[in-house]
């Protein structure tokens, strides 16, 4: 702690600064300030708890009726008031994991380039440019996706995958190419999470001590061998944390996914098929949910999402911090 402790003013000695009432050496202003800032700081965990409480309370009517079966049932029948979130859970997991598969190697490549190979003058602008991807609003990604990504996928990429590469015979790329599909959602998610993974990876790679790099080079490693065998393994935990952070973002992403995934309540092995995610079902169906149970079922999807992202984000933060980045505590 770097605070300088002031001795309490003795009675009769130098008077306290004007305007400061003193209570045993501490001015009233200090107490007010301390109380206020502590209160605001405590507001954050309180808010988090309150949010969790409210979301679970909103979901309660549906959770009470369906119980754990909500997570495993695929039936979504507003007419008969039967709801099951399995297709949404499947869609959320598949789209996020696929987005990670697409984005993580790319993000790691960008981070390695920026931290090891990039000429100094290019480093800052390029890093800033990649980070700008995170600043684009989700709905703009969705808009761009509808009018450019979907036609591109529908007319070029999907036929290429299905016929030219012959993957159309496998169950993962079968079915008609509508455009709106799990693949489209995964691609846009990959673009959206790339800057997060890249930023964390870049930081942890740069935090690897010089001694590690120099030791590898002294043993005769080439620059690439140094990176592959000394730098990246050292930063492994932090990079993993960054990847999981990206996963957390992908799980919760709503607007762009709603606009691109096709919104269909079915589990399908094919990436060309439309799907659904926990977040996009809420966005899509809320305005049409007329019965209390329907609304509560949607909120229950939100509650599942809340719990999952809470856990994933906590793991990610813990991993990133444990790599000796700028020590936070």
């Amino acid at each position, binding site marked *: 702690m770097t605070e300088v402790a002031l001795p309490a003013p003795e009675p009769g000695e130098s008077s306290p600064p004007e305007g400061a009432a003193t209570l045993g050496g501490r001015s009233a202003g200090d107490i007010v300030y301390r109380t206020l800032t502590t209160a*605001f700081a405590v507001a954050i965990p309180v808010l988090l708890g309150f949010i969790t409480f409210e979301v679970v309370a909103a979901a309660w009517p549906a959770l009470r009726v369906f119980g754990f079966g909500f997570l495993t049932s695929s039936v979504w029948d507003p007419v008969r008031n039967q709801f099951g979130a399995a297709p949404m859970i499947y869609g959320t997991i598949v789209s996020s994991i696929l987005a990670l598969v697409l984005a993580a190697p790319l993000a790691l*490549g960008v981070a390695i380039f920026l931290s090891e190979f990039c000429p100094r003058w290019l480093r800052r602008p390029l890093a800033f440019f990649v980070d700008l991807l995170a600043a684009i609003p989700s709905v703009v990604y969705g808009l761009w996706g509808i009018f450019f990504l979907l036609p591109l996928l529908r007319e070029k990429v999907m036929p290429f995958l299905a016929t030219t590469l012959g993957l159309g015979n496998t169950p993962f790329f079968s079915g008609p190419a509508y455009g709106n599909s799990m693949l489209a959602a995964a691609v846009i998610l990959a673009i959206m999470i790339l800057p997060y993974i890249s930023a964390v990876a870049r930081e942890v790679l740069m935090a690897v001590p010089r001694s590690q790099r120099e030791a590898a080079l002294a043993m005769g490693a080439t620059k690439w061998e140094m990176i592959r065998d000394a730098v990246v393994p050292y930063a492994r935990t932090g990079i993993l944390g960054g990847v999981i952070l990206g996963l957390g973002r992908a799980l919760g992403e709503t607007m762009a996914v709603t606009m691109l995934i096709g919104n269909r309540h079915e589990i399908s092995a094919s990436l060309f098929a439309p799907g659904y995610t926990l977040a996009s079902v809420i966005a899509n169906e809320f305005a049409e949910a007329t019965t209390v149970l329907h609304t509560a079922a949607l909120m229950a999807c939100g509650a599942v999402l809340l719990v999952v992202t809470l856990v994933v984000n906590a793991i990610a933060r813990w991993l990133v911090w444990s790599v000796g980045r700028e020590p936070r505590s």
Partner: protein
Amino acid sequence: MVGLMGFAALLATLPLIFVLIHLIRQGASSIDLAFFTRMPRPVGEAGGGMANAITGTLILVSIAASIGLPVGIGAGLYLAEQRGARLATTVRFLSDVLNGMPSIVMGIFAWHFLVRPVGHFSALAGGVALGAMMIPLVTRATEEMVRTVPTALREAALALGYPRWRTSVAIVLRTALPGIVTAALVAVARIAGETAPLLFTAFGNQFWSVSLSQPIASLPHTIYTYAKSPYDDWHRLAWAGALVLIALVLVISILARFVTRSRHGGVGD
């Protein structure tokens, strides 16, 4: 290997370039004064603008800032000054967890807290959802900015007889203020683009409304509605709106980088 990594870096910059190019191509021709001042026209009629949406976004952001800024700056000051205390570590961790919360979950929270009990959608509920999202952004930025203020400055003030609270507020906070203001602007830019929390709190409104207890239009929500629609005219407006939104966000982000660049000596911020 260099080539492969460089190629990855190039590939990563392509989406941004493509998005910007397409936005400008599709949207630039539709932006004129009418876009900012006219109300939306009925479907099928040409013209019309997004005046209600732009005003709505301004109102929502104001409500959000009135919640997010005090709490964020207060919490940031606390974290910067009580760096190692157990409460501080916990709050810092939970603030990051709150930061990663999906925006639609924030919307659910505000819906259950502010919409369901009163039975109607409101701008206030939307503002509260956005404000809750703003808190962790401002907290983290305030903490970092306050930590860059040299300890010598604080000690000099204390040596001159300033009480601790006055040192923190009048000296330290004021020194860190440019960075905090910039970070607040960046946070505002981020939440101005959020749609999901507004879907069932502010709900959107085709008409002009500035009332806090009524549904209100907002720029990203209107873009979403228009993008989903089958009408070409609405698509055109959606592109224009998206261009305005992204111009706002990008300009603020670039300005923020310029202002804070000189503070951090390091590379690749």
